[in-house]
């Protein structure tokens, strides 16, 4: 049913055609923030797409070179505010690696639980926002309903709803209580039921399937070319997950699958994320069952953080893909260099090539399926 997409050659072979530039953004509902896309269009076909970034640049890397290790703690959660826990995790872990701190097991388990809860919350926001792009409004509100339940749990522990500053070098700033564990158990049960509802309402929907299947195909080759990771790469059939490939924290102790689909279209990326919610629930369930007692803070954490000079690196699987920090320390209280490798940036990079020849509507569906957080792109 899909119409013939004009390739570059067919355009040049035809009579002189009138093209125009459509400026999508920086304020546009489809760009989820302040991304700007310069689309060169032939009618409704996108001939060339050029993302223009930098509208949400917030100097995170520069700030890393300007303040002490402790003072940088609020920043990672604001780089990608939807997966704040993962970013915090990467940051505290890279410093812990530099200092050689051993984290107590209870703290690691709680980190995994909160991270996975955060992953679900992030995917729920994506689910809602993506469907909003496709013109369905109601699923957004259902997703936010469920997300509120996660936020309640996390707020009770961390004190904030979105930009948690919860992990510390050597552990956590406070322990979880019985109420949180009970609440999480109840949530896991609740969310399983809701996933079924989402599948009935959305996944199986004829209109949605027709909109996503075979649209915006991204090959594994393209992902490799631009360094795309996370659900985008897994949607292209590559079972790549930092949690499995370079296991960190206590992830090796849990059983979970890495969902991946070979189609590489928007539907594959959609299914990967929905399946990941289910897998996260699995991990949370196991982590709660195994949660050991004990302290949540390592004993030997120096009061002044001064990692020995050196080059340190740590990567985690954030909701959008591989997030890595490279830390260069010169032995002082302030990092010499703090390089952030953010997944959204690489995932956005392939948009220009993947969107070529698509209809505008499909190009925007493709953009939505990449799940971008713009401050994460611009840093």
């Amino acid at each position: 049913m899909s119409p013939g997409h004009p390739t570059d050659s067919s355009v040049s072979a035809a009579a002189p055609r009138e093209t125009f530039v459509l400026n999508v953004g920086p304020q546009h509902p489809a760009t989820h923030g302040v991304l700007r896309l310069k689309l060169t269009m032939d009618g409704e076909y996108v001939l060339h797409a050029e993302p223009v970034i930098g509208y949400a640049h917030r100097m995170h890397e520069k700030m890393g070179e300007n303040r002490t290790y402790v003072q940088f703690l609020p920043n990672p959660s604001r780089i990608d505010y939807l997966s704040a826990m993962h970013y915090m995790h990467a940051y505290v872990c890279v410093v812990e690696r530099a200092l050689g701190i051993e984290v107590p097991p209870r703290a690691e388990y709680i980190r995994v639980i909160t991270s996975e809860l955060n992953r679900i919350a992030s995917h729920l926001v994506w689910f809602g926002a993506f469907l909003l792009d496709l013109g369905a409004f109601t699923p957004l509100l259902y997703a936010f309903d469920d997300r509120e339940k996660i936020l309640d749990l996390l707020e009770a522990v961390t004190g904030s709803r979105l930009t948690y500053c919860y992990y510390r070098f050597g552990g956590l700033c406070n322990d979880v209580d019985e109420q949180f564990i009970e609440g999480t158990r109840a949530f896991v049960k609740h969310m399983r039921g809701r996933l079924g509802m989402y599948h009935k309402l959305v996944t199986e929907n004829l209109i949605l399937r027709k909109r996503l299947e075979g649209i915006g195909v991204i090959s594994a080759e393209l992902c490799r070319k631009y360094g795309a990771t996370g659900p985008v790469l897994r949607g292209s059939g590559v079972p790549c997950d930092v949690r499995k490939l370079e296991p960190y924290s206590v992830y090796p102790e849990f059983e979970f699958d890495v969902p991946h689909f070979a189609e590489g279209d928007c539907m594959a990326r959609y299914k990967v994320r929905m399946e990941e919610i289910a897998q996260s629930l699995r991990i949370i369930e196991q982590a709660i069952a195994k949660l050991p007692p004990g302290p949540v803070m390592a004993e030997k954490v120096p009061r002044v953080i001064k990692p020995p000079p050196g080059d340190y690196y740590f990567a985690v699987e954030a909701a959008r893909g591989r997030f890595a920090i490279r830390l260069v320390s010169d032995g002082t209280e302030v990092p010499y260099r703090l390089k952030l490798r953010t997944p959204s940036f690489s995932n956005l990079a392939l948009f220009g090539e993947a969107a070529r020849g698509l209809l505008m509507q499909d190009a925007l569906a493709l953009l939505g399926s990449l799940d971008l957080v713009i401050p994460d792109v611009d840093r």
Partner: protein
Amino acid sequence: MILPEPYRLIAYLVGALAFVGLNAAYLVWLERKVAARFQRRPGPTEVGPAGLLQPIADGLKLLGKQFVVWPHADRVLFRLAPAFVLAPALMCLAVIPFGHALCARDFNLGLLLVFAFGSVNVLAILLGGWASRNKYSVIAAARVVSQNVAYEIPMLLVVTTLLLTAGTMNLRELVQQQAGGVWNWNLVKVWVNPLMPVLFLIFYVCMLAETNRAPFDMAEAESELVAGAFTEYAGMGFGLFFMAEYANIVVGASVATVLFLGGWHSPVGVMPGTFWFLVKLYALVFSVMWVRWTFPRTQFYRLLNLSWKLLIPAGLGALLFTALILKLR
């Protein structure tokens, strides 16, 4: 009715105007309430009891808002389009029989008039989009025209099929034929034409597309085209487009009620009256909202494919089949 003809017509048009105005205002309220309920929230509650004053506040706000024709726009057409979009819907209401005696102008080609005026509204959106000189508006306008042209054909095919069995284009007579209970409605008269439910389904889909409602809301594809054809309109200019959308839904639902659901007749066969017409009308309007708040938007080319590759052949098939039945009977 004892009033002489011209006065009667004027009185009815004023009535229709009030009806459309009220409907548009309160259908917006209803839509917000219904959407809210689907999403498990209360919707407008704080402005007046149950938010009933919300449309009035919105109206006042829109009236008090600046209206700017920006320098590059086509000044005349830009101002004309909002008025042009509402007028045809009003004209359609003139021939729709709300009750046994409640019909402004009862004449033999009523149905033709409805469809003739119904097509004008596309032109208004085209004018508005084109006069705005905004890329988003122009794209949306082009989409709307091709969409409405595509869906007018299956809609007329369905109506023609129906007319083959009914034998009249007078809306009042069409309703009269469906008197005496739910089994006499055109929707369930499968012994006259076994395709009746299918015809209704096609008509319903076409109605959604003609009124630019989700999942076919290409005119105001919010997440792609900003506000579509209305991007540059502010204040009451935008308000009129908004009203016209609901006026068109009322017209569409009215025609569906007249053609398929027995007009003002009650489903049990007793106590016919305008009341029943309104019940059916609003039930249809509710279903339109229900569809909107459930489904995502379709792609534009699939929308056209649906019409040209499925609905039009189906409509033609139904027409042929019905003609055959009538000939053989």
